[in-house]
């Protein structure tokens, strides 16, 4: 092992990791918004639009992310739409992950008993009160674990964006390798960082989930 190479490239790798975190935060937020909107549309769309939405979801299920990235990166400029590579990256991740998020949200809301909605109406709760006081407290704990799983997937998939030269963690790693000629050492370091980051997120989500479902344990005992 070439420890020297790891030590000298640590600062630039750190910058890359921060760039990845920023990129993923933006992409996760965008895909949550677009996914939430999609869930809302799925629940009240006409059969025609439902078909369109399902076709789009089906494509993201069947196509590799790298092909989606290439499609956005190479095809859009042919129609005179030139986006910078980070924007293409966020767009690709958003388009790719939103249908999954939409499914999670829709399933959690569909799992609410019909009587809850009727009770809300009887109590005369406004739409925002329904959402804040009735729907979210029950659906959030259910959605948390799959949503965190998707976020971890998004962080892992963001590594692909280095291929279209988005300057994130993997890109920094490639630069460090061309400086130090120690690919295995650098990539092992990169793997370790991703692993620690994702394990941390996983652990935080578990803590949050057990806090959110405390009321259930309270009922049981």
């Amino acid at each position, binding site marked *: 092992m070439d420890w020297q190479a790891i030590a000298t490239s640590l600062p630039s790798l750190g910058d890359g990791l921060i760039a990845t975190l920023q990129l993923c935060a933006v992409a996760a937020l965008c895909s949550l918004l677009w996914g939430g909107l999609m869930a809302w549309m799925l629940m009240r769309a006409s059969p025609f639009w439902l078909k369109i939405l399902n076709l789009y979801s089906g494509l993201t*299920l069947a196509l590799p992310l790298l092909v989606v990235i*290439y499609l956005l990166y190479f095809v859009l400029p042919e129609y005179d739409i030139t986006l910078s590579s980070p924007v293409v990256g966020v767009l690709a991740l958003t388009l790719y992950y939103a249908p999954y998020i939409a499914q999670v949200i829709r399933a959690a809301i569909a799992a609410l008993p019909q009587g809850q909605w009727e009770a809300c109406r009887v109590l005369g709760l406004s739409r925002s009160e329904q959402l804040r006081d009735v729907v979210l407290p029950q659906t959030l704990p259910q959605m948390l674990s799959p949503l965190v799983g998707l976020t971890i997937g998004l*962080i892992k998939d963001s590594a692909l964006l280095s291929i279209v030269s988005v300057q994130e963690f993997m890109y920094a790693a490639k630069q460090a390798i061309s400086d130090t000629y120690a690919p295995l050492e650098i*990539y092992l370091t990169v793997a370790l960082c991703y692993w620690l980051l994702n394990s941390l997120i*996983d652990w935080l989500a578990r803590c949050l989930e057990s806090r959110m479902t405390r009321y259930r344990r309270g009922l049981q005992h």
Partner: protein
Amino acid sequence: MGLDQQVIAALPELGHGLLMTLVLTVLASMVSVVMGQLGCFLQLRRAWIWRFIGRLYVSMMRGTPAIVQLFVVFFTLPRLGLGGQPMLAAVVAIGLNSGAYVAEILRVNRSLVTRGQLEAARTLGLSRALTWWYVINPQVMRASLPMLVNEFTILLKTTPLASVVALTELTYAGQIVIARTYDATQVLLLVAAGYLLIALPLISAARRLEAKRRLA
């Protein structure tokens, strides 16, 4: 929209790429199932060290990007005297990655095997490995089949990564053709169609198997 003459001339090249993608998917799926069984078997052992190794494997493979794993394997193989073989690197890396997910699928379905069956197996004098192979594995594999087919679809979607180690599968073949013809749209749509060609039957097979399992 007719196909460009140059793109038509490149169709055999893309076809070969599709074939390589298929070969990679099948070989990696085989590695994945073997590693999944091993990972699941280790996690069920009683000695903590085996369980720890099993958990560590699953956690590391699920916590790091597949592309990083591919690079690690690609640069480790030369140190084992197996350098310069992108297909080997891709099969090992993608198989190891998917194997962790297969191990989790098998572990979830492991609860189908009742305690009484395990006790019966022990009474009959079967060793732990033989119990796994003859009693647990057949039942768990059958119950996991829909999820496994689903996992192979996901595996198919990781195969384009192999293009970064210059394995001429579908995506890389597409890139080579684009570099020559400058017709990104048509070529990429063909590449996408190639993936749909493999993925759609897999997805519908998974759905049908799942429906059948619910009925049973």
